[in-house]
């Protein structure tokens, strides 16, 4: 199974029935494909609606795009609103969980995912509000960079998206809970704890109930 699918499947297990969820672009958008049976969630799109859904082969409607600007569908019972309402929902604790990608996360629950100085400066968009206001902040990312460097650090070196707001980090080889440092809760399929240690710059504690991911 590919790394991205492992991560998406594992993140899906965090989403409880009835949750309102905002998904970042990229990997997080895979998560709804793997929801557990009988789990229904409502997706919030920060450009102004609740009830984001797949197109399912239908003709796209005008002015219906997701927060990545791509045509999308909408489920029955959805609603549109302006950006002030959208971010009141986000900051005000009305979004149960957000799943975002990350460039770096550190053992204090700090996240960097919005810029690489001198190289990539896309802007934070809604990410800073999402990590500030969502009840559960889940970072879904591959454990290492393309060059093999760890993205789980003692201290983020890139400009932060937030300080101390991350609750859970899911990679293809590990699930960390942030609780006064990182706690290893699960390892990926067939992965030894030593591999997680080797691939993580940050130190972590091992949960007494640490187990293999079930995906």
């Amino acid at each position: 199974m590919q790394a991205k699918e492992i991560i998406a499947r594992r993140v899906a297990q965090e989403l409880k029935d009835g949750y309102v969820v905002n998904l970042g672009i990229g990997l997080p958008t895979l998560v709804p494909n793997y929801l557990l049976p009988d789990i229904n969630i409502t997706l919030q799109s920060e450009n102004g609606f609740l009830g984001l859904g797949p197109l399912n082969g239908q003709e796209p409607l005008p002015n219906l795009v997701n927060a990545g600007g791509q045509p999308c569908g909408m489920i029955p019972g959805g609603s549109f609103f302006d950006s002030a309402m959208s971010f009141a929902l986000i900051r005000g604790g009305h979004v149960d969980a957000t799943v975002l990608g990350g460039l770096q996360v550190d053992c204090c629950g700090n996240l960097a995912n919005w810029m690489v100085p001198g190289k990539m400066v896309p802007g934070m968009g809604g990410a800073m509000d999402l990590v500030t206001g969502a009840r559960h902040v889940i970072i879904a990312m591959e454990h290492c960079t393309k060059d093999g460097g760890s993205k789980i650090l003692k201290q983020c070196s890139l400009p932060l998206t937030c300080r101390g707001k991350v609750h859970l980090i899911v990679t293809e080889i590990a699930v960390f809970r942030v609780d006064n440092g990182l706690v290893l809760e699960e390892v990926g399929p067939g992965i030894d704890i030593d591999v997680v240690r080797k691939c993580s710059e940050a130190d972590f504690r091992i949960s007494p109930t640490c187990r293999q991911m079930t995906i």
Partner: protein
Amino acid sequence: MSIPQKVISFKDAGQYFRDGMTIMFGGFMGIGTPAGLVGSLLAEGAKDLTLIGNDTAFPETGVGPLIGNKRVARLIVSHIGTNPETGRQMMAHEIEVALVPQGTLIEQIRCGGSGLGGVLTPTGVGTVVETGKTKLSFDGVEYLVERPLRADVAIIKAKKADRVGNLVYERAARNFNPIMALAADLVIAEVDELVETGAIDPDIVMTPGALVDKIVLAGRD
């Protein structure tokens, strides 16, 4: 008493744009950006503009053409990642870009249009966003003081208007538009459809006509 004539041509709309103006534009990645009014701005030749809006869309959509044609001196936006030309001009110091969290940006605009002196938000605490800003703490939570934003002109896009300027938006094209209608000295709405006054149920009006100064009809001159 006669109702002021709000419906104008795109050419007439052009006369309101001046060099050095601050202009708010609705839209999210170009969805809900008034393309015809962006065209008027281009045709008018106004330059050294300060633009306030969510993002610079793509090179050919939203306000992308204004960036590409070097009309913009300064941007206050949450995102520029989908328009490589904005990034290039920023790196080359040809354009000044202030990146603002999206939820903060919309609240600054709301404050600017609502008679408020600012808003307290926890967003951005502990990041570069807090640089130079006043921080206040209440009940153990730190907040940044974010000041209001206003513009000389707001260009917004709606699905439908009546002749007094009541607006209805369509789907995700609403986004920043109704909030910006509060926050500029002159508000010009581009609409797909113009109906007679009274034809829009007052219960579904999303922006009250009193906020809209001028209306242009998309696809016309």
